[in-house]
């Protein structure tokens, strides 16, 4: 791009059109990746299953129904019932809502924090960058499960609290990716031009660095959502989960752990498979997007 700027021309507009045709190209490449398309289908299915499913298949998920405890799958309860008499198929829909919402929100939050952190560190450079990235190193040195278990010793969060906690333990990887992207963008002509005509640092980051990193951010977010849904599955197991009668897939799994030894396989296999399928699907989508946008990300 030319460093000479025409009066009235807004820097960045030119790249916007490039992105539009780039998006069409990326969409075509994505559609060719069969696994990614299947992944998209799986995610769509589970959203319909969890959010529309209960309208079609209505079950009581709040009251204890002692007359129908731990029933094996049958015609009236396709996936059986659990220890307090809740229909497992209905519970899979009910718990899936929480898993999907918390996973999506935490994944997006982690990406937002990581993006801002990485963009500022990469753009600032020098000792600010060095300190900010050492903080990231320190965060990565403490495994998330350990932090979550410490948190569970201190407090039991509500749903919003849970999303915030999960977001704050998983923003580190995206911050590294976006920093690398920023380093390669910050000396481009359009950024230097903006600075030369008196644009602020904030404007350079918001108007140029971030829009041009959008494909990296989207890919990072997709993988982040996969990881967050997996992390949500651990949350109940670690004692941080949502409180009954509400539940999520991880909560169903933890609740079924001991019952599974008595042969009640239908309490753990359905939520276990649901977690695996959805996490797999988001990873496959992320893989497809990464190839489609041709960005570097995790292997």
């Amino acid at each position, binding site marked *: 791009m030319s460093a000479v700027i025409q009066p009235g021309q807004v820097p960045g507009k030119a790249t916007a059109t490039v992105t539009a045709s780039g998006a069409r190209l990326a969409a075509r490449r994505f559609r060719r990746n069969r*696994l990614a398309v299947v992944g998209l289908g799986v995610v769509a299915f589970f959203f319909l299953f969890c959010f529309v499913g209960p309208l079609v298949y209505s079950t009581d998920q709040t009251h204890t129904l002692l007359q129908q405890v731990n029933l094996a799958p049958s015609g009236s309860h396709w996936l059986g019932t659990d220890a307090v008499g809740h229909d497992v198929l209905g519970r899979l829909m009910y718990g899936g809502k929480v898993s999907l919402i918390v996973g999506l929100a935490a994944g997006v939050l982690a990406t937002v924090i990581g993006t801002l952190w990485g963009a500022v560190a990469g753009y600032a450079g020098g000792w600010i960058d060095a300190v900010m990235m*050492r*903080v990231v*190193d*320190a965060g*990565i*040195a*403490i*495994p*998330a*499960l*350990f*932090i979550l*278990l*410490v948190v*569970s*010793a*201190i*407090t039991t969060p509500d749903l919003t609290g849970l999303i915030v906690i999960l977001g704050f333990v998983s923003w580190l990887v995206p911050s590294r990716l976006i920093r690398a992207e920023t380093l390669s963008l910050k000396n481009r002509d359009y950024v230097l031009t903006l600075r030369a005509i008196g644009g602020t640092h904030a404007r350079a980051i918001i108007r140029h660095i971030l829009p041009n990193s959008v494909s990296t951010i989207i890919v990072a977010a997709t993988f982040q959502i*996969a990881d967050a849904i*997996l992390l949500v*599955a*651990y949350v109940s*197991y*670690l*004692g941080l989960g949502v409180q009954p009668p509400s539940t999520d897939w*991880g909560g169903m*799994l933890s609740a079924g*752990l001991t019952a*599974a*030894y008595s042969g009640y*396989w239908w309490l*753990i296999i359905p939520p*276990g498979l649901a*977690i*695996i*399928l959805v*996490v*797999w699907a988001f*990873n*496959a989508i992320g893989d497809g997007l990464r190839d489609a946008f041709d960005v570097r990300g995790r*292997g």
Partner: protein
Amino acid sequence: MSTSKYLLRRVLQAVVVIVIVTIVVFGLLHALPGGPARGILGPQATAQQITAFNHEQGLDKPLPVQYFYYLNQLLHGDLGTSYTLNEPVSQLITERLPKTLLLTVLSAVVGLVLAIPLGMWQAMRRNKPADYIITTLSFIAYSTPVYFLGLVLVLVFSQALSWFPSQAPQGDTLAQVFSEPQALVLPVVAGAASMIAVFSRYMRAATLENLSEDYVRTARAGGSRSRAILWRHVFRNSLTPVVAMLGYYVPVLFGGALVVEQLFNYPGMGLLFWTAAQSSDYPVLLGCVLVIAIATVTGTLLADIVQRVIDPRVKAGRA
């Protein structure tokens, strides 16, 4: 940059990271509801008792002063005393850490021994059915919560088939642990599964990249057989990024050990941490976090150094 200058800078970075971790751990210790005094004296303690305790322990001094006290203690190997077990945290960790290291090292070795040939094999059969099947299985292994996998392993191989015990070895010493090798099988498999998934993907990508390099074409043109090229050149060159990745994988291994030890009742540091969380034993929790963080930072440092030593391209600043 010369190697010695690079080493100095990397070690300095590692020290800074560990200092940041100590600040975080110190901050957590003081962010606890009621602070350390409430933790030690219990919920029944009166306000006077807490004030007296805080004065006695120097907890009413300014935070930076307290932090330097804390740092001084750490430098002398003092991680505090467990609230519930009444033993020095450093002693508890010294007893338990070797068992956790045994579990993680075994899982890592098993994982790598399977993942590396698997990844290379996939690369040789790129986009054929075998490649797709293994890729799908890897993704599934990566997407499975460790505790679910462990549970399924126990249900199948312990309950239904009675091949392996459902409980890990309970011995206090490593020799005792090794005396029950069959009891180690399920915990090691549960710990290695996601590692196989991640590292076979990594090895596949690295092998593919190397197969397209000029030197492979040159060797082929020179008449070398594919197998010879694969093992003599591609294997070694692909291993470099895998070694680097291993350093970054240390926290994941510890995270896995936390779950595996709890699930199979294996008395390592993960189980110590787990029970400490149930009883709000903060000195033990934070001591473990510190030890794990130091292990991770050291692992990453070693991986970077090894990579620099074995890969001449890194030295030249090309990779």
